[in-house]
């Protein structure tokens, strides 16, 4: 009985681990799918994250003080 119970635990635990791995794989793939699409669209409409870094460079230190 004790052996059976232990083996049940092992089966259920391993199933849980497999399911968690599958879920994390699906979520990762799905997330990267949407993020890839975001990047692709950024390229199409010519908006990169560079625009933000450019803005940062353009703002002089005096202006920054004013903002603050």
């Amino acid at each position, binding site marked *: 009985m004790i052996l059976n*119970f232990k083996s049940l635990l092992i089966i259920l*635990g391993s199933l849980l681990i497999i*399911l968690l791995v599958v879920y994390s794989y699906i979520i990762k793939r799905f997330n990267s799918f949407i993020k890839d699409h975001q990047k692709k669209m950024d390229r199409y409409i010519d908006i990169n994250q560079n625009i933000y870094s450019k803005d940062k460079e353009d703002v002089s230190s005096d202006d920054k003080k004013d903002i603050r």
Partner: protein
Amino acid sequence: MILSIILAILNLILIIPFIIVNRESKFLQNSFYSTIYYYKNKLGFIVSINGDIRMGKTSLLSGLSSVAQISIIQDLQELLEDTKKILYKFSFNEIDDILIDYYLSFNYKDKENYPDFDYIVDLLIDHLEIESKTNIYNFIGNIGSRKLLIDYAQALFVLNIRNNYVQSKTPFYSHITGTYNLELNLDWLKIKEAYKNKDYAILDWVVILIDEITDEASASEWQSDVKDISGAKEYRRKFGQIHQERNRIISTKQDILDEIKKYRNLTHSHIQIDEKVSTTGNYNFIYNFVEKWFKFQLFFNKQYQKFKYLFIRKKFNKIPFNDYYYWYLNEYNITRRKSNYLYYLKQFLKSIGYNRYYGRILKRAEDIEKVTADVEEFYFFIPTIYCFGTYDTHLYKSMQTDLIKNSNIITKEIIPELNPKFFEEEFGNNEVKGVDDFEF
């Protein structure tokens, strides 16, 4: 024991979504297949979609046109396969090569170059030196082998070279072929006039889309041409036979009475949509979950920033935290990047869904107002991607810009305090109203 029960429950919670998603997608897929079957085998060659405003007529028109395209492609492939089965001694590798090479050597933008399949099949028969003027008896009827070859050549051209199955006046983008529609002039439907004017270009193997806005035979015109001098009614009456049951017409109408009275015939189906279109199978819970997760992340980020701000306050001249946080969000563009992600996520989930239409098929004009009428009900499930965003519903949008640009005045906000001078407007100017300059 308790541990095993907890593990079992956790496993169940994780397995159940797989089962639900699998079952639902199977159900929706099968429903879509049965929609194709219904469209192919139960509806007539001319389908008119009727319904109140904002019920989803245009989206059903788009969806059914995609269904029609799928059914046309299936028919074409069936025709090719059947021909190969019947003429089993012919080498179709050779025939296909010859035909495709021939088709690719022309540009199909001019009328002169458009393939004449009779002529092409003659060339083919001469080239291959085959006997083609035989009848093949299949225990039911006779099929001429020449006709088979002509149909084969045409089907091969349509499937591989033309690759376009929609004719419409309103611009329509097809997700099946990835192309815009072929042109359509609604005068071509008036076959007698079209023959007289040599103005006709409706092809075989197409689905013709007629929107109510672009339809000149709409409700306002339904009593014109009662004797059918133009040939529009005759074309619709003999539509199935003229095009050998290969073409379809789908039109939308609000005024079903006129439609049924004007164009009632054996191959015309009238669909009445009773329920507003709804979408299903788009798993909105994923979107809600991700949205909540982002809010959760932002909340913790804010707490962290609060804590961090305690140490860097002096750098920022001790401005209030909210101002700092506002600057921080804009500086690192956090919320907008996340909302962009959510936008694409929502659109993606929308795109994998299905549109659900419920309605009935009317057989007689009298059925419209009868509750106990003999009607056939239907449920259509069509992928959302085939229904939304394919049809240009604002064909006449340039009218507004033309009007505004053409005009010399603009509109301004009124000031009620300035009393308008009515009498001055009426009698103030000395211009004489009307025309008083007559010559006899």
